[in-house]
């Protein structure tokens, strides 16, 4: 699903965020990317969702070089990639339901389907009572779950999640992980960038650590 070959990213003037990173993530894999704050996890995810371009190297998603893709093709590709951003990127003047629905509306899903999917996701993330709440009025933890719900709403084939449990208590963290596992079991490739060891220590998934822009294997996933 994901192929990264010798990818480097340097921010001007000379801040090296990633150095010669090579990574391969198989379709349907759940993969943990760990590392300290500032290690380059967010940069790597931004490169994967084409928010930023690499300084060097090649990145392919499903066999497509995403940084050479433009227009309609790129839009279609992005519809298949769900991203939960660290800064949430919520429309703070819209309701929770509207924020989640947006990712399905752009792919012209039927309104009944959108309504049902939004309700389901809100139930799964303990946000059922917040359907019509303006997102600006939510707590950080609630906003984080709304961002996650939006990422998975359109049933993408690749889900990129940046620090999904940073503002959550242990019970909610478990719920979030259950949702991501459910998505993974239904076929989605999931990449989770985190420094919260509680969510990966007891799993059998592959873990790699970013240190000073370089990627090291921590644990091989169970095959």
């Amino acid at each position, binding site marked *: 699903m994901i192929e990264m070959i010798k990818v480097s990213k340097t921010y001007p003037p000379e801040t090296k965020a990633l150095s010669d990173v090579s990574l391969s993530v198989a379709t349907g894999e759940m993969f943990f990317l760990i590392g300290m704050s500032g290690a380059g996890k967010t940069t790597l995810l931004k490169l994967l969702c084409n*928010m930023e371009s690499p300084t060097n190297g090649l990145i392919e998603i499903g066999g497509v070089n995403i940084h050479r893709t433009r227009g*309609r093709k790129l*839009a279609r590709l*992005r519809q298949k990639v769900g991203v939960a951003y660290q800064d949430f990127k919520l*429309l703070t003047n819209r309701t929770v339901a509207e924020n989640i629905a947006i990712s399905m509306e*752009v*792919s012209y899903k039927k309104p009944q389907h959108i309504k049902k999917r939004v309700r389901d996701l809100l139930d799964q993330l303990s946000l059922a009572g917040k359907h019509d709440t303006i997102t600006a009025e939510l707590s950080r933890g609630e906003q984080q779950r709304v961002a996650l719900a939006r990422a998975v709403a359109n049933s993408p084939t690749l889900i990129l999640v940046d620090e999904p449990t940073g503002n959550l208590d242990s019970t909610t963290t478990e719920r979030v992980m259950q949702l991501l596992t459910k998505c993974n079991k239904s076929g989605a490739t999931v990449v989770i960038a985190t420094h919260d060891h509680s969510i990966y220590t007891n799993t059998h998934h592959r873990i790699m650590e970013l240190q000073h822009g370089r990627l090291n294997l921590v644990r091989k996933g169970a095959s």
Partner: protein
Amino acid sequence: MTLLTVSLSVLIFAFFFLIYNNMLSVGDKLGDDLQLIVYLEEEPGPEMQEQLRKKILAFDDVEEIRFISKAEALRKFSDQLGDDRDVLDDMPQDFLPASIEVVPLKDLRSLSQVKLFSEYLAKLPAAEKVQYGQDWIERFYYFTRLISIIVLLSGGLLILTSVFMVSYTIRLTILGRQAELELLKLVGATNYYIRTPFLIEGLLQGFIGSILGLISLYSLFQWIKLKFSGPGIMSLFEFTFFQATTISTIIAISIVLCAVGSYTSMQKFLRI
């Protein structure tokens, strides 16, 4: 704000265009009444009349040639004087010159053509003077030209202001909704999906703006008609509002211009 600008632009342009249109129809009406009078030194006999007729027709076909004898000229003048005709009692019966009234064809409309024809008529044997209301026609001609320049300028202004204002407003809207548009791009919205609402906004602005402008002009037109409907120069001519086709064309152009303004600003700001 954009709606107001579009309305005002349409109002300004349509106002001058309406004046221009009405001036053209007044010009046509005056052209229908146009005749050149050639005053003769002496009254021509039947042979001379035939010769003059041939000479006139040698220049161009004309609608009508009428020979007015001295006696006929006096009778006409006396009719025009009405109750004051007795002032002519002591005058000699042949003090008015004989003349030829030439009504040119309808296609002889331009000032230069009329001038050329009058110069030709002035060179006819026995011709003393040619009159066709030169001063009035020249002034009218230049006024019509001035109006046509204003129509062109205000038309250009309409195009520029509409495109500029619509694209400027949409740019402001885009800046205000930058976060939303960025998110739309990130979740996979196509250019078409993002652009459509803005394009519809532009189309509606063009449509509603032009309708408002035309309604304002119509109200102004009715007010002027009512205010100046009494006896006077305005009552000599019948002023009319635009035909349905002209109204549709103005609305269509306004819609197209606003859509272009909207589209160009989206192109600039949405490089996806």
